[in-house]
């Protein structure tokens, strides 16, 4: 009885508290750039934020959850309900030209908790900004612009997240800048950060796998080999044509010396990516894609299981088909979309036979999505993957449906 009374009392307090919320305390931070010349590099700040009262701090985030039933070669793991991500952003204007932003991500519940971004930006000139902290290495477009609510597909592209290691951030410093000229914007970014480690060629994926480095918990504290990694990107956007980006990321990945003693030669990993996006004005069709190459200096006497060369990419085509009020959501848009993706994990040839190594992946994902509001998406995907092993045996096939939502908050 006492418990019931306590619950009742707490309920009354809660109701009273709710009645005291002043909705004007939380206000949506207006978007500053309406030029139509936003680039992928602007994605980290181009998010819906809420500010609290008159404080210089804004908060935001997004959440993703889904159901899926996938089957591989006739064997299904049944119905899976997944809370893939809960991401929190906090931004702060320290000064008119000094600002801070952090992004903290909880993946698969609390299985992974990562600081994906935490940097302070100093603006000296539009062409010269300094950024330091945990930065997103600007390789490709997806790593810069990966928020779930922006995409019509539940799974992230394999080439961007497993060949390139999105989401991929490191401690370091760099500069970036932009130059506007009529309908054009030109931009650059360049960073020196910590880099990869030797797990990229020694991991439980049994293939060259750049994301393996993410398991190194010391990487935000110390460089694996003391050699900085360089990441640089140049991008250009025309208001009518679209955006094109060219990026590079590379550095030494192995521990070539220890306590001053040489263990091995310096071995490099080099990656290049080309990304683009455009909207066909007449039809409203949105097209985005990314294509990347990876080269790793794998020791000759190691195993060809770990490829020296990788290549892959994806292309998404999104076509709005309905723009009208649905269930009272006045800005509703329904899209049909399709993603095609390919990754060749190992582009080398067998020493023993001279034949090309297979080890590749092809996927196609038709999708239907409903955006009741621009920052919220409800998605229904059908995925079909073909994955071949190293020697090119008949492909393992995986397919199934996925349904879920992703929304900024």
């Amino acid at each position, binding site marked *: 009885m006492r418990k019931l009374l306590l619950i009742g009392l707490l309920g009354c307090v809660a109701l009273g508290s709710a009645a005291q919320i002043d909705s004007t305390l939380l206000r949506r931070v207006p978007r500053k750039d309406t030029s139509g010349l936003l680039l992928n590099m602007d994605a980290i700040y181009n998010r819906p934020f809420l500010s609290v009262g008159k404080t210089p701090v804004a908060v935001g985030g997004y959440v993703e959850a889904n159901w899926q039933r996938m089957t591989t*070669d*006739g064997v299904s793991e049944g119905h899976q309900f997944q809370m893939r991500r809960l991401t929190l952003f906090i931004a702060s204007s320290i000064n008119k030209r000094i600002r801070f932003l952090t992004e903290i991500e909880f993946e698969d519940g609390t299985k992974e908790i990562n600081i994906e971004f935490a940097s302070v930006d100093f603006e000296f000139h539009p062409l010269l900004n300094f950024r330091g902290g945990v930065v997103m290495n600007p390789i490709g477009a997806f790593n810069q612009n990966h928020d779930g609510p922006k995409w019509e597909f539940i799974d992230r592209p394999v080439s961007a997240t497993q060949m390139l290691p999105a989401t991929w951030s490191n401690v370091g410093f760099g500069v970036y800048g932009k130059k506007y000229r009529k309908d054009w914007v030109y931009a650059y970014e360049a960073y020196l950060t910590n880099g990869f480690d030797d797990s990229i060629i*020694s991991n439980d994926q049994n293939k060259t796998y750049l994301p393996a480095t993410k398991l190194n918990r010391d990487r935000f504290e110390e460089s694996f080999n003391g050699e900085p990694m360089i990441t640089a990107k140049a991008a250009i956007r025309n208001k009518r044509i679209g955006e094109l980006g060219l990026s590079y990321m590379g550095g030494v990945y192995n521990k070539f010396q220890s306590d001053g003693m040489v263990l091995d030669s310096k071995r490099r990993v080099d990656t290049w990516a080309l990304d683009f996006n455009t909207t066909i004005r007449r039809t409203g069709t949105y097209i985005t894609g990314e294509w990347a190459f990876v080269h790793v200096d794998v020791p000759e006497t190691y195993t060809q*299981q770990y490829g020296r060369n990788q290549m892959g990419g994806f292309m998404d085509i999104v076509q709005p088909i309905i723009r009208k009020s649905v269930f009272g959501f006045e800005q509703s848009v329904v899209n049909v979309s399709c993603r095609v993706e390919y990754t060749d994990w190992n582009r080398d040839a*067998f020493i023993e036979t001279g034949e090309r190594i*297979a080890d590749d992946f092809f996927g196609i994902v038709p999708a239907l999505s409903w955006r009741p509001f621009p920052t919220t998406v409800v998605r229904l995907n059908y995925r079909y993957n073909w994955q071949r092993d*190293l020697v090119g045996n008949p492909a393992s096939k995986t*397919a*199934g*449906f996925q349904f879920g939502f992703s929304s900024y908050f």
Partner: protein
Amino acid sequence: MRFWIIIGVLFSVLSCEVFEPTVPADDEILDGPVPGLTAGETIQFQRGDVAFNDEIFTTRNGLGPYFVATSCGSCHPGDGKGHPFTTLTRFGQSDISGNQFLHQGGPQLQHRAIPGFTPEVLPNAPFARFTPPANTGLGYLDAISDAQILAMADPLDADGDGISGVPNWIDLKPYVTTRPNSIPMSGKYIGRFGKKGATYDLLQQTATAYNQDIGINSTFEPIDTYSGDAVDPEISDQTIHDVVFYLKTLKVPTPRVPDHDIELGRTVFENLNCSGCHKPQLQTGTSAISSLSDQPIAPYTDLLLHDMGPGLDDGYTEGSAATYEWRTPPLWGLGLSKNSQGGNYFLLHDGRARSIEEAILMHGGEATASKNAFSALSSQAKDQLIKFLESL
């Protein structure tokens, strides 16, 4: 109303299995357990399956420093025959006096090494290359009694058919437990696994493969191939026993449904006396795994050594086998070899034969008469024979 119709259609589509990849037909794949396992045995089979096919060895969990492959599954994709990428080189022995190159890394070359190490180089020694075999039905072969193997032996060719199979008599590893009703000879036992038949059982095969192929030491094989020292185990006994159980309980390949040509090919197979060595019918003895006990099987082997002639004599051997002698390889699952070898055939002990016909024509020694008879066949009869072999 229209909304609910759309929702209904959507859920019908979502629940429709036609959109899911189907299970490959039983005669298209080699993996899967033998029928009749208990729940406990099934769980152990699955543990072994994961250890065999999914466990990847890296510098962090014991790979190397010398090695050939990074996992069991690398050498036996889908439990089938391996690709030249993981072909083994074994060296150092040319007669029954044993391996003279153990001090130089024998009996197996580890031609790969983790970064920072230099792999072994083949010394000037007799050697042979061995393509990894399929794992098909190994438990049934393990359960064949010594008496049945000896009954098929004909060392002096008493029946005059030109075929004189003999067992490979080998010394046992200290950790091996002999089978009940084993028939030793002068302290040696019949080996039945491996290209030369120099391995006694699947425990020896598994522990040796972890050690020699991946550089993983165990309590069974504790000597590190790099240092030559006994070192701490890098894999548990339980995992090794699980893998052994997995290998023992892998199903036999399901033969394709015979059509007229396949039946005619079977007759050709008999007429050429291929079945003199590739015995089509054997019977397992008693096994601790009840599913394997007293089962009729069709492995197309006699588990004996045969003289295969100078063309296949690489000058290297193991146990009591001569350099020109090879254990009859089972033919079951032959037709599925391409599905594990990247769409090609790499047949015979080292993968030198790129087709079944080529493999037949490379036979010599005791198989010379059969090979010559094959050469004399019409192309139609040859096709029927090959179709039969691919149906196994």
